[in-house]
């Protein structure tokens, strides 16, 4: 069993000073990611020094993270003039200005006597001629990828002013086998597709996994008892637990922002579905909706005061918002077509959704009162948005006509920088974790 989740134990950061550049002046190099079109920032990421290749491995992961964000344009190493031989010394800024590197990353990875890796890196403002960041991290070698993601997050945050999202994981449904008898099992991986691990064995269909805010636990729906039911799963131990004991199907689970409750749909005997919460400590169940309709896909606002959900009480699936106690249920989607899978942004200001119109499926966002709808991507079949913890990127799954199965993709809130997420098989229902190192 890997130790990746025990972040506080493993990864320690220490700020590195440097004699040559101590002035904490305002950086010249910055990215304003609130502009509509962002020109990616040219950045030179040098190979981190180490005796055994682990330095190069870590710096290449940093480079890949930053490149995929669409906000950075790493410069090819062939263009580099200065060869960094002492990462503790200031670089020759002129050599990096010549190749128009706005920012420069240098570093070194070594092994401590106790076996831990020590990774040091510095971020330089080339045209400002100063160090912006100097930090070192200690971690077990098994966590070298996490060190790289944390370094990438640190650079992203320093240059954009917003939290990164690289030290995160994705839980999803791995799909294999023929479409008429497809195996659907839960899997987890790093946000860049590395280190895939399967969480269920595939003997029964498992769907709609979602992270708890603690990052240690997943709630999902499975057919393992014969009747579809909501479960909890401890990621590290594999321990599973049925949520409640209900006569009908339970589905569409999500955690409350404090992780104390699971909100889900319960099928009524008349064929309609309503929304309930269960307190995971007291096991008390509370009914929130009671319509003669399908009420499903509930998602809390980050401050827990409101819930967004799908209902077809008006004739076709639309998005509604209600208070956390079920009060004031109001429709907010009026754009024509049907709407489902609403998910509240971690920033609280937007709701992502799937919209069906004109024979296409779209992923979009709207404000929490339904205004300001923006469609990010349209296609034959795509659904199930999930937010990166910084609220800047949305992941979803897509099936092209004739493709045979779905794949994972991410897109920026701007509708730009669409990226395919590599998975071993077909994949659906991605859910993004919070930042592993505390957010």
């Amino acid at each position, binding site marked *: 069993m890997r130790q990746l989740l025990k972040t506080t134990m493993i990864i320690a950061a220490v700020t590195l000073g440097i004699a040559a550049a101590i002035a904490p002046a305002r950086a010249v190099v910055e990215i304003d990611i609130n502009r509509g079109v962002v020109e990616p920032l040219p950045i030179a990421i040098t190979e981190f020094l180490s005796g055994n290749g682990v330095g190069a491995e870590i710096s290449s992961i940093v480079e890949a993270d930053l490149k995929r964000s669409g906000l950075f344009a790493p410069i090819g190493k062939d263009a580099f003039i200065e060869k960094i031989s002492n990462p503790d010394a200031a670089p020759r800024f002129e050599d990096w200005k010549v190749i128009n590197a706005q920012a420069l990353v240098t570093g070194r990875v070594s092994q401590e006597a106790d076996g831990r890796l020590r990774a040091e890196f510095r971020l330089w403002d080339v045209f400002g001629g100063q160090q912006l960041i100097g930090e070192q991290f200690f971690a077990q070698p098994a966590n070298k990828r996490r060190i790289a993601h944390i370094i990438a997050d640190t650079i992203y945050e320093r240059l954009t002013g917003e939290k990164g999202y690289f030290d995160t994981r994705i839980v999803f449904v791995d799909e294999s086998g*023929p*479409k*008429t*008898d*497809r195996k*659907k099992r839960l899997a987890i991986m790093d946000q860049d597709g590395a280190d895939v691990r399967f969480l269920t064995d595939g003997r029964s*269909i498992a*769907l*709609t996994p979602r992270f708890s805010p603690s990052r240690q636990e997943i709630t999902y*729906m499975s057919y393992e008892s*014969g*009747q*579809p039911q909501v479960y909890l799963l401890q990621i590290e131990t594999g321990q599973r637990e049925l949520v409640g004991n209900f006569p*009908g*199907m339970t*589905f*569409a689970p999500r955690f409350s922002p404090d992780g104390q409750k699971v909100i889900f*749909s319960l*099928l009524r*005997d*008349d*064929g*309609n*579905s309503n929304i309930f919460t269960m307190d995971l400590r007291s096991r008390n169940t509370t009914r929130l909706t009671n319509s003669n309709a*399908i009420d*499903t*896909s509930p998602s809390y606002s980050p401050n827990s005061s409101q819930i967004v959900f*799908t209902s*077809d009480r008006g004739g*076709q*699936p639309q998005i509604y918002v209600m208070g956390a106690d079920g009060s004031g249920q109001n429709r907010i989607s009026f754009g024509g077509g*049907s709407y*489902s*899978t609403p998910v509240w942004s971690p920033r609280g200001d937007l709701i992502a959704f*799937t919209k*069906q119109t004109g024979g296409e499926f779209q992923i979009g966002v709207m404000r929490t009162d339904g205004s300001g709808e923006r469609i990010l991507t349209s296609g*034959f*079949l795509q*659904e*199930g948005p999930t937010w990166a913890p910084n609220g800047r990127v949305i992941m979803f799954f897509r*099936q092209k*006509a*004739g493709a045979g199965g779905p794949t994972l993709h991410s897109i920026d809130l701007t509708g730009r920088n669409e990226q395919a997420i590599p998975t071993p098989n077909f994949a*659906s*229902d991605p859910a993004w974790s919070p930042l592993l190192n505390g957010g």
Partner: protein
Amino acid sequence: MGRISRLTLNPAMLILALMLAVAGCANKQTPNTAADLGLGGGSATPGSPQDFTVNVGDRIFFDTDSSSIRADAQQTLTRQAQWLGQYPNYQITIEGHADERGTREYNLALGARRAAATRDFLVSRGVPANRMRTISYGKERPVAVCDDISCWSQNRRAVTVLQGAGS
């Protein structure tokens, strides 16, 4: 998969299954029974699951995003109710399904509503409710896998599955 493996025991049924698959992607019609296909079902033992599937029709189909029992489906379910009255030892699972033109969670709910509507119709035709359980597979278990309406219309279905017991 249980149904498929049962079908393959009988060569005539295998042909039927193949024809259903071919007809499904070529036609907008959704054949319910062997009789609809002009096959006849004479080889099935009366009271057997094959008899039910071939001569009665084990499934009904729905319109897009609807759980209303269509007129053609009412005929099928009426035949099912008569047959189930004749062979009262079977327990029944009604599977509700949706096509892929909806999102996953909503389609789980829609499949459940279709299964409940099917069960309620059978109850109205005299099948005791305690013989039946329902389950939704949403869009997770399509029978037809092309990417157009000819397949979607076959996947929007409720299937009456006979459980063990026998007549």
